[in-house]
């Protein structure tokens, strides 16, 4: 079956260009979850469908950010979002982030595949030289995800985020193109 707005296809997930129809489902509600907001360092503020639609419109106009939906290949259910932001065409770099909002799909496999697909796309198709991510020190999930895919830890920002009443450190991970192209974690795109 043809997948709507399919952009990058993997084995169990595909990355799609989000549409207004995606906003109407549970996407907006992930950002009413205190734990998700805390872990991604987002300001704890209510989010509605119309806020999410406005956000999507803003992202679409903004060419320094690529936002994609993470969807299950079998049933096209949107389980999360993944992005490359701060796209810098001079330095060839960008910052990645990923959220799996649907708790039923938080078993690690989908996040791993989605990040591998995005890394491959960013470094080989967008011709970026470096992708980095910033994650709270307490977010062990994100650390493991980056480490397993061969990203390296490059530094710690002290007390950079306010988390549940205290300031906590965040860690920067990065992957360079020269290292990724030698990696055995590189996926092949299913739509090629």
């Amino acid at each position, binding site marked *: 079956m043809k997948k709507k707005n399919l952009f990058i296809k*993997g084995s169990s997930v595909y990355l799609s260009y989000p549409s207004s129809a995606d906003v109407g489902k549970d996407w907006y509600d992930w950002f009413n979850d205190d734990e998700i907001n805390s872990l991604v360092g987002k300001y704890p503020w209510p989010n509605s469908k119309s806020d999410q639609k406005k956000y999507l419109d803003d992202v679409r106009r903004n060419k320094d950010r690529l936002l994609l939906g993470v969807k299950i290949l079998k049933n096209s259910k949107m389980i999360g979002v993944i992005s490359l932001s701060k796209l810098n065409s001079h330095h060839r770099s960008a910052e990645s982030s990923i959220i799996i909002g649907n708790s039923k799909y*938080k*078993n*690690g*496999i989908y996040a*791993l595949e989605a990040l591998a697909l995005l890394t491959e796309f960013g470094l080989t198709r967008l011709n970026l030289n470096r992708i980095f991510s910033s994650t709270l020190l307490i977010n*062990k*999930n994100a650390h*493991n995800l980056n480490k397993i895919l061969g990203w390296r830890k490059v530094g710690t920002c002290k007390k950079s985020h306010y988390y549940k009443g205290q300031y906590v450190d965040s860690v920067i991970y990065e992957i360079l193109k020269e290292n990724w192209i030698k990696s*055995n974690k590189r996926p092949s795109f299913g739509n090629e």
Partner: protein
Amino acid sequence: MKNKIEDLLKTIISKSLKIPKKKINPYLKASNCKNWDSLNFLTLISNLEKKFKIKFNYKEMIMLDSYKNIIKVLNKKIKK
């Protein structure tokens, strides 16, 4: 898979997914194990790579969604 390796595998799964060894059987899957969450799964991959001194490639990694598949992938890796 030889008993010693299978026992080591069960120990790693038990520690990583935080489930008793006796609950590890051929029917164990990400979809039927409450403790198979993102953090525990990523810890499991990392521990398997460390203990067996192997590196999973992309295709192998995304196959690791059940006890049966872990054994299948490990068997191939260890034989190499």
